[in-house]
C-alpha cells in the first residue's frame, strides 16, 4: 500500500530490542525531518485533508507553520480543534482519514500529517515543560462567566476528555466521572505504553485539571449514582455519557471458559492499567506460559499480541479468520508486529479449546477458512473448509474479536433508548431520547477510533451549550 511512510521514515526502536521492553516503538521525527516533510505540502486552496479529519483541524495552516519552524504556533493551531494532538498523532488511523484525502495520495506520496501532528505536539509538550509552564499555551477557560451550570461527563476516555474540555472552555463547571482508579479510559487500560506512553495521557489529564475540570475516579455511575440522580438530586444541567463499548465478546465456542483464556480487555487492563508486566514489583499477575494465541485481526489484537511478546513468551500466534488484506488493524501496526516476530495464521479460526485436568487450556483446535461472497461489511465472508481442522498447542489465549455495549448505564437509567445491540440511540447531534442526557463515542457507535470518539465529544459539547443557552433564554 503506498503511503507517506515510503517518503519519510520515522525512526523506531530496533525490533529485537523493543520486543523485550514496553518503551515507545516509534521515536518521532527530528526538526529537520519535520520541516522537510512540511515543505512538500502544497497548501491547497481547498484542502481535502481537512474534510478527512473528524475534528476539522486546520491542517495546511499548522503544516505551513512547521515549514516556517514556528513549532509552538503549529501546536497551538492544532489544539484549537484537537485537545489531544500528542495522542492522536500516535494512534489515529491517518491513512484512512486526512492522509487518504490528501491530494498527493493519488501519487502515493501523501503528506505524513500524523507524524507532523505528533511532532508539533511533542515539541510543545517538551518545550513548555522545560520552561516549567506545563500546558501554558494550551487552554484557559475563555469565558468563565455567569454560566454556573454544572455538567456531568461519564467516562474519561477520549470522548469524555474532549467533551469536558470543550465545555470547560465555554465556562461550565464540569465533573468527569471515571469508574477506574485512574482517568483516561482506553488510553490508559487499552493502548499499550509502547504505542502511547502513559506520561502523555497523564500530561493531558493534568492539563484538564488545571483548566478546572473536576475528575472523580472510582465513581461507577449506574451503581454509585444513577444518571437520574445526577440530574434530579445533584443538580447537573446535562449529562454526557461516554462510557465506551467496554463489554468483551467471546466466540461462544466449547472450552472458552478454560483457565488462561482472557478477553483482550482483561489482558490489556492487567498489562497496561495494572502494569502486570512489572509483576511481582506490582501486585497484579497475568499468566501466559510459552505459547499464546491471539484471536482477531484488529488493532486490539495487534496490541495484545505485541504485549504478550514483551512479557517474555516464546511464541505468539495471531489467528485471523480472513486474509491479511481484510485485517482491520493499521498497516503500520501489522508491520511492527511482523518485525517483532508475531506469527500470523490467516484464514484460520478456532472452533474449540481443550484443556488439562486442572481446566487449563492446552490446545486450540482451528479450522481453515476460504473467502466467499462479500458480507454486509463489504469484506469477503470467511467460509470454513470442511475437514481442515488442525490443532495448535497453546498455554494461553487472548480473545480480541470485539466488544459490545456495556449495559451498566442503560439498565439503570429511565427512558434511555438503546438499539438492539444495546448502544445508546442519539440524534445526529448526540441527544439521547432522554432530556438533558447526551451520549457519544463507542457507547453510541460501537467500537471506533479515538478521533471519532473525540469528534463526538466535541460535537456534543457544542450542542449541550446551545441547548442550555436556548433553555435559559
Amino acid at each position, binding site marked *: 500500500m503506498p503511503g507517506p511512510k515510503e517518503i519519510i521514515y520515522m525512526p523506531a526502536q530496533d525490533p529485537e530490542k523493543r520486543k523485550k521492553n514496553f518503551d515507545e516503538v516509534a521515536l518521532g521525527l527530528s526538526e529537520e525531518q519535520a520541516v522537510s516533510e512540511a515543505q512538500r505540502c502544497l497548501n491547497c486552496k481547498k484542502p481535502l485533508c481537512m474534510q478527512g479529519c473528524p475534528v476539522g483541524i486546520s491542517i495546511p495552516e499548522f503544516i505551513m507553520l512547521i515549514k516556517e519552524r514556528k513549532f509552538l504556533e503549529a501546536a497551538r493551531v492544532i489544539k484549537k480543534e484537537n485537545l489531544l494532538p500528542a495522542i492522536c498523532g500516535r494512534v489515529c488511523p491517518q491513512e484512512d482519514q486526512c492522509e487518504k484525502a490528501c491530494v498527493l495520495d493519488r501519487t502515493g506520496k501523501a503528506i505524513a500529517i500524523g507524524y507532523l501532528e505528533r511532532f508539533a505536539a511533542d515539541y510543545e509538550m517538551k518545550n513548555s515543560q522545560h520552561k516549567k509552564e506545563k500546558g501554558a499555551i494550551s487552554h484557559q477557560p475563555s469565558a468563565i462567566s455567569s454560566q454556573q451550570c454544572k455538567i456531568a461527563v461519564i467516562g474519561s476516555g477520549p470522548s469524555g476528555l474532549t467533551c469536558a474540555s470543550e465545555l470547560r472552555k465555554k465556562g461550565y463547571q464540569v465533573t468527569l466521572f471515571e*469508574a*477506574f*482508579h485512574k482517568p483516561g479510559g482506553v488510553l490508559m487500560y487499552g493502548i499499550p505504553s509502547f504505542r502511547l506512553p502513559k506520561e502523555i495521557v497523564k500530561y493531558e489529564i493534568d492539563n484538564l485539571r488545571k483548566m478546572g475540570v473536576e475528575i472523580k*475516579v*472510582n*465513581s*461507577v455511575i449506574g*451503581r*454509585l*449514582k444513577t444518571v437520574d440522580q445526577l440530574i434530579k438530586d445533584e443538580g447537573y444541567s446535562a449529562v454526557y455519557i461516554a462510557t*465506551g463499548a*467496554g*463489554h*468483551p465478546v*467471546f466466540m*461462544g465456542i466449547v472450552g*472458552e*471458559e478454560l*483457565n*488462561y483464556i*482472557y*478477553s483482550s*480487555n*482483561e489482558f490489556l*487492563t*492487567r498489562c497496561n492499567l*495494572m*502494569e502486570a508486566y*512489572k*509483576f*511481582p*514489583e*506490582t*501486585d*497484579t*499477575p497475568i*499468566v501466559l506460559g510459552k505459547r499464546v494465541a491471539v484471536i482477531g485481526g484488529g488493532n486490539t489484537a495487534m496490541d495484545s499480541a505485541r504485549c504478550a511478546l514483551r512479557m517474555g513468551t516464546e511464541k505468539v500466534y495471531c489467528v485471523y479468520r480472513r486474509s491479511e488484506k481484510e485485517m482491520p488493524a493499521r498497516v503500520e501496526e501489522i508491520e511492527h508486529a511482523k518485525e517483532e516476530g508475531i506469527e500470523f495464521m490467516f484464514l484460520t479460526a478456532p472452533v474449540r479449546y481443550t484443556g488439562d485436568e*486442572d*481446566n487449563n487450556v492446552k490446545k486450540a483446535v482451528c479450522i481453515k477458512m476460504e473467502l466467499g461472497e462479500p458480507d454486509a461489511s463489504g469484506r469477503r465472508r470467511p467460509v470454513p473448509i470442511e475437514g481442515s481442522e488442525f490443532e495448535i498447542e497453546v498455554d494461553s489465549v487472548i480473545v480480541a474479536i470485539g466488544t459490545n455495549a*456495556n*449495559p*451498566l448505564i442503560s439498565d439503570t437509567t429511565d427512558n434511555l433508548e438503546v438499539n438492539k445491540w444495546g448502544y445508546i440511540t442519539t440524534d445526529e447531534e448526540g441527544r439521547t431520547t432522554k432530556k438533558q442526557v447526551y451520549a457519544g463515542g463507542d457507547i453510541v457507535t460501537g467500537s471506533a477510533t479515538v478521533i471519532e470518539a473525540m469528534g463526538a465529544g466535541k460535537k456534543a459539547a457544542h450542542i449541550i451549550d446551545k441547548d442550555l443557552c436556548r433553555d435559559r433564554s
Partner: protein
Amino acid sequence: MNKIISKRKLSEGIYRYTFENKELAIARKPGQFLILRVHDKGERIPLTIMDSDSEKGTVDIIFQAVGKTTNLLSDLNEGDRILDVAGPLGNPTLIENFGRCVAIGGGVGTAVLFPVLKALKEAGNYVIAIIGARDKDTLILIDEVKAISDELVITTDDGSAGTKGFVTDALNQLIGRDDKIDYVYAVGPVVMMKNTAVLTKEHNIKTEVSLNPIMVDGTGMCGSCRCMVDGKERFACIHGPDFDGHKVDFNLLTQRLKMFEGREQESMSCGCEKKEE
C-alpha cells in the same frame, strides 16, 4: 475519604474495618460489593460490603488476610486511608417475603451473609441462620447474627463450638423438620455452596448463592469473573454476584479461582519491603 475509623480483629487474621465514604454508605444495598486497592502498585480486589451507616457515612468490611492485598490491608490502622474504593458493585440481593428462610454463612462468608440476613428479616421472613467454621476461633459475628435471626445453628468442623459437622448437616436436619423451608441463601467456600445446592435441589428449595470469582474492574468490561450458569456465560460483576445455586457450575468456579495461585506466593514474597513504606 476512605479513612478507617475503626479496626477490630474478629479472630486470627480476620478483621472488621469501618471507614468513611458517605456516597457509598448511602448507595449500597445488601449483597453488593466493592473493589479496593491499598497502594499505588496494588491489585484491585473485591470485598463484600458487610454493613453501612448512611447517616454517619460509614461502610463496614470484613476480610481475612490471606493474600498480598488483604495482608497489606490488615497492616493499615485507624486514621489511615484506603487508597481506592470503588462501589457499590454487583446487583443487590433480591429480597422478598419468601416465608421461611435459611441463611447459611461459611467462614468469612458470614460477613457477606450478614446484610442479606438482616434484609430478609426486615422483609418479614422467618429466618434461620446457620453459621459454620473450621473451629471456634474462626467463627465470626455470632452475636450480631443471633440478634437478627429467629434461630441460629452453629457448626464447626472439629466440634469446638456448636455442633460438630458441616453446615449442610445442619441444613439437612432443618429440612427433616415438619416446617417447610421456602428459601435458602448460601455464601462461603465454593464447596460449601455446592453441597448446599445439591441438597436443596433434592428437596426442591429455591436457593441463591453469592459467587466470589477473580475480578479486575467489576463493571463488566473484562470478563475475568465469567461463570457458567445454566450453561450460559455470565459475568458475576454485572449479572450477579447472586445466582440460582441449582444452575451454577461450581467445579468450573473452583478451577478458575486457582488461576493465579502460584503467583500469589511470588507476590507475597515481594511484599515485605512495601509494608515498611
